[in-house]
């Protein structure tokens, strides 16, 4: 039974949860955390919305289609960054070799950030899907 108390708290909490999730994702290269952990937090905020309000208010913000697109895009971005390293002559996921006008350590940091963001996009869609997909209506 959702009450006004639960709804109000959830409404206040969700933006902060998502902001915290994004913080964890982008701070992956320098502090504990990263794409997976941050993605799970953002995904969990959608689950909180579905639990405290109803399924449709979560579906409005993250529909089935959007989640599939985010899920695939994140995974493909990750693979793409890995394959980019092959193109410039390194091995898979050898970030340091990518020729950018920066010190190799900085290139590594930047690429870890990008990989983290890719994983984050993938995982936030996935974590939300784990709950929402089970709750959705299905034809079969």
């Amino acid at each position, binding site marked *: 039974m959702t009450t006004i108390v639960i709804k109000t708290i959830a409404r206040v909490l969700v933006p902060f949860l998502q902001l915290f999730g994004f913080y964890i994702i982008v701070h992956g290269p320098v502090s504990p955390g990263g794409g997976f952990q941050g993605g799970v937090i953002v995904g969990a905020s959608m689950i909180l919305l579905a639990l405290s309000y109803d399924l449709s208010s979560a579906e409005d913000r993250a529909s089935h289609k959007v989640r599939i697109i985010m899920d695939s895009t994140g995974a*493909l971005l990750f693979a793409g960054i890995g*394959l980019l390293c*092959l193109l410039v002559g*390194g*091995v*898979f996921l050898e970030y340091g070799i990518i020729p950018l006008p920066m010190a190799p350590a900085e290139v590594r940091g930047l690429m870890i950030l990008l990989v983290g963001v890719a994983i984050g996009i993938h995982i936030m869609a996935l974590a939300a899907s784990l709950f929402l997909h089970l709750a959705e209506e299905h034809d*079969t």
Partner: protein
Amino acid sequence: MDHSPILVVITPFVGAYLSPLLGLWRERLCYPVAVAAALLSLFFSFRLAGSVLTSGTIRYWVGGWEPPWGIELVVDPLSAFMCLTISLVSLLAVIYSKNFIEKELPRGKMTSYYTLILLLIGGMLGVVVTGDLFNLFVLTEIFSVAAYALVAISGKRGSFIGSYRYLILASIGTSLILLGTGYLYIITGTLNMADLAVRLPAFYDSWVVFGALAFLLIGFGIKTALFPLHTWLPGAYSIAPAPVTAIFSAVVSKVGGYSLIRVLFTIFGLEFITDLVPVAPALTWVAAATILVASMFAISQTSLMRMLAYSSVAHIGYVVLGVALAVEMGMTGGILHIFNHALATGCLFFCAGAVIYKTGIRHIDDLRGLGGKIPLTMAAFTLAAASKVGIPPSAGFVSKFYLSLGALEAGEWIFVIVILLASLMSAVFYLRVINLIFFGGDKHEVRRDELPLSMLFPIIILALGCAVFGIFVGIPLQLVEPAVMVLSEL
């Protein structure tokens, strides 16, 4: 630098994540994506096999990190051999899927089907190229999860309970594998297989190592479906769509067997498993029991799919028997049988699927007279069945012959009797089916009508393979012999 070790794994995964995106737009596009990804994997597998043959074992450091810190991909002759088998059968199964899936699956499932099947392929290829024990566990989990979903995908009666039973048993298996991996990590502090092999001898008297070995044996034993851990298999195989069953029987359970070989020979080493802890001799008896019990069950089946499922359990037994004999001839026969059985069983399940596609028949007694209706398919069925029984000069005969020689070389003549007896038993149930198909009279209303080309092509290729590789044995042996050398030297 040759990037084939990573590309062979990445290609199916990229395909798996492309197809949902394209599927949102046009569902029909998933099929060409899946075929292209499987074709590319086969291409990279051939390149791998080529470079392994010319320059020996390939070691690829992912991310440029040196092992044991980074993840290492190791492609030795056995891995290359498995890669080729997996990607060949998978490509044919994906090609076969087109018409079958359109007819047998509910609408809107096509995208998920092709995504899952590519995940399954990518996971299996990952297992055979990785040189890291934990990586092996993760990839085992990836292809297993895809497999659970594929069993249930048709949504038909019994598919969920079959999938659930498979899920529970196989999850127990993967949990035990994780525990075993953890034990090895606790005691040695490393997960790299080559590094483990170097560090383990210092702990050979430790109970932790025995525990790890026991967990890994039972875990991979469930994945391989060794008796008495095979109970999940017939249910799952008879429910899944035919192309998926073909992949399951031809390669998924073999990948479990491959992991078993890796753990026993590469990590623990030949000396440990034969002399210190007699695991290999014990496994030969388990394998012999698997062969006999599964053949016995196969005789009593009335459903064609279930009969083929039990028969494939028996053939996994041959593979494990050969390898566990731990003599050169036996291991050659066991590893060769992975390939030869994959050809035969893939073809048989494709044919069983073709019968379901054309007529909806699942029971053996209803097969009467189908030989006149879909003659090419049924001829292929006969050829593949001959290979499974081991009638010369089929491919199955060659590997069974090597297995028997291996049993004699090891001085275990009792296993020769087991192989002969099981071959006779399989002759009983395959000849019964063939007899019904061609000489059982004709009671069907269907017109004489062959299959669509996309289904006929894989069947013909595999059936021809069963005949060709019985005569040109030298082709697969080029990889099998170095694989045996590498395994027995460790």
